[in-house]
């Protein structure tokens, strides 16, 4: 069975959930082989084995010193050497770029933001703000596919996760853009927005930069906090938390929209959420067309009551 390369997302050796989803998808296509860039493969190995990785190809942390190009070189090299059936990455902004460059090197094709993929490598997309479903495939060469987090439910299956040095060196050509500093901004204990199982977002209805009503509900659910463009543009919440067409795309099990009208720009970033709860003063707000459960009312009274009820039930 041909190998399917899965680029691992990890933070200091801790494997992210999306990687377990990718390994699950890879098993439909062939034999999953994880590709690990940086330190920590020894500690992350167990998790990869649990989700069926037979091999783990490792490469030095030096690849992370330059923007994207070294990772694309690594994946293209491995895809050729191992005659891989496909390359899967998570559909994060950076990994989509890695996918694009890898496909150029392989002379194949790239599919991004895929919400499902079959064993025959037919990929499903949700486009135009969720209004249209398309299916697409790569015509020739090794398909490179970026899969949206929270799209394929992770299922365990034992694998050997045998470590093997990929033996790649960063070429001169890949060193054009050098990372000279990494700046970590406020993150706190909340899960990462694109990976979170639950997202609670605030919009114009929050009314000020005091997002505590949104954050309190998020924390009661162990959720990530998001914000609509209106809230970000007003300077109420930092840009990296923006959900929507020009921000992040999320696909959690539960999305709670507080004071968000649900314009197409916002829906483009959250429409594939499995369950949607909305609170808005305006009964005509388009968000209610999407909501599985909606409350017409002031979020400043509804959200605190909801938070309190959740705490009581814990």
């Amino acid at each position, binding site marked *: 069975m041909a190998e399917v390369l899965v680029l691992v997302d990890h933070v200091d050796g801790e494997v992210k959930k999306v990687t377990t989803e990718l390994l699950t998808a890879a098993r439909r296509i062939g034999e999953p082989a994880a590709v690990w860039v940086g330190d920590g493969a020894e500690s992350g190995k167990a998790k990869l084995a649990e989700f069926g990785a037979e091999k783990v190809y490792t490469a030095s942390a030096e690849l992370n010193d330059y*923007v*994207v*190009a070294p990772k694309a070189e690594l994946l293209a090299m491995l895809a050729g050497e191992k005659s891989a059936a496909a390359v899967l990455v998570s559909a994060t*902004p*950076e990994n*989509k*770029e890695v996918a*694009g*460059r890898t*496909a*150029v*090197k392989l002379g*194949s*094709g*790239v599919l*991004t933001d895929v919400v499902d993929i079959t064993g025959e490598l037919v990929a499903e997309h949700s*486009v*135009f703000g*969720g*209004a*249209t*479903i398309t*299916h*697409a*495939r*790569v015509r020739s060469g090794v398909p490179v596919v970026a899969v949206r987090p929270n799209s394929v439910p992770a299922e365990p299956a034992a694998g050997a996760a045998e470590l093997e040095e990929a033996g790649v060196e960063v070429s001169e050509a890949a060193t*054009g*853009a*050098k*990372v000279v*500093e*990494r*700046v*970590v*901004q406020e*993150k706190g204990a909340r899960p990462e927005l694109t990976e979170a199982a639950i997202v609670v977002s605030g919009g114009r209805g929050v009314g000020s930069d005091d997002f505590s009503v949104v954050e309190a509900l998020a924390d009661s659910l162990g959720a990530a906090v998001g914000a609509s463009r209106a809230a970000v543009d007003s300077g109420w919440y930092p*840009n*990296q938390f923006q959900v929507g*067409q*020009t921000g992040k795309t999320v696909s959690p*099990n539960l999305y709670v929209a507080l004071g968000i009208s649900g314009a*197409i720009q916002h829906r483009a970033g959250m429409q594939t959420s499995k369950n949607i709860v909305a*609170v808005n003063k305006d009964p005509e707000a388009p968000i*209610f067309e*999407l909501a*599985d*459960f*909606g409350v*017409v*009312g002031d979020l400043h*009274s*509804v959200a*605190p*009551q*909801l*938070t309190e*009820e*959740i705490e009581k*039930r*814990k």
Partner: protein
Amino acid sequence: MNIVVLVKQVPDTATERKLSSDDNTLDRAASDGVINELDEYAIEEALLLKEKHGGEVTVLTMGPDQAADSIRKALSMGADKAVHLVDDALHGSDALQTAYALSKALGTVEFDLVVLGSESTDARTGVVGAALAEYLGLPQLTLAGKVDVDGSAVRIQRATDYGYDVVEAQLPAVVSVIEKINEPRYPSFKLIMQAKKKPVEKLSTADAGIDAGQVGVADAGTETTDFAPAPPRAAGTVVKDEGDGGAKAAEFLAEKKFV
């Protein structure tokens, strides 16, 4: 410093967007075309850099005749001239073919920096900037929330999950920008009038040295095999808050086993 800004005309997000059942590509006649929103931030950044460092700003677009409207918009913001890569052979090109074609068209222009929006609002692949850097063999400075040029060096703040990376490269380079980078200007009446007289060069695939066998829907590396409207979401329950809205929402969450 000479800058080329890449601009794409996209269907207006506010209108109903469709694919064409002939070849599963974008139906450009179905909705109004507008300049891709993030490209306005790219134009603004190019103009700010020009104001600081001098030089010229050239707009480059690839698209059908009607994309001329987006060129006018860019020129009326203050860009100096434009190149319009237009050829029926380009119809239905996918993201990588687009990057290839743009890399060839860039061969006809002198530049120190290429600036583009980090993604388009229609296909949203987010790969064109990276693929373009790959084709051109130039440093990739993408997802920039801040750009500074100092002599022959360029430095950006590249957005990451955890904050940002400071990335450095030598010119020439490819820069893509995110929305937080600036606030695009509105064209003044004077600039709108001037824009009508600014030069727009039309380029065919042959002019740009593009291999016609590498572009267009028939030769794309990817193929959209079918499409359909998304199944409508089942109608949900909407209640009016009578002082118990939060409690009712909690019941729903409990039913769904979130609490």
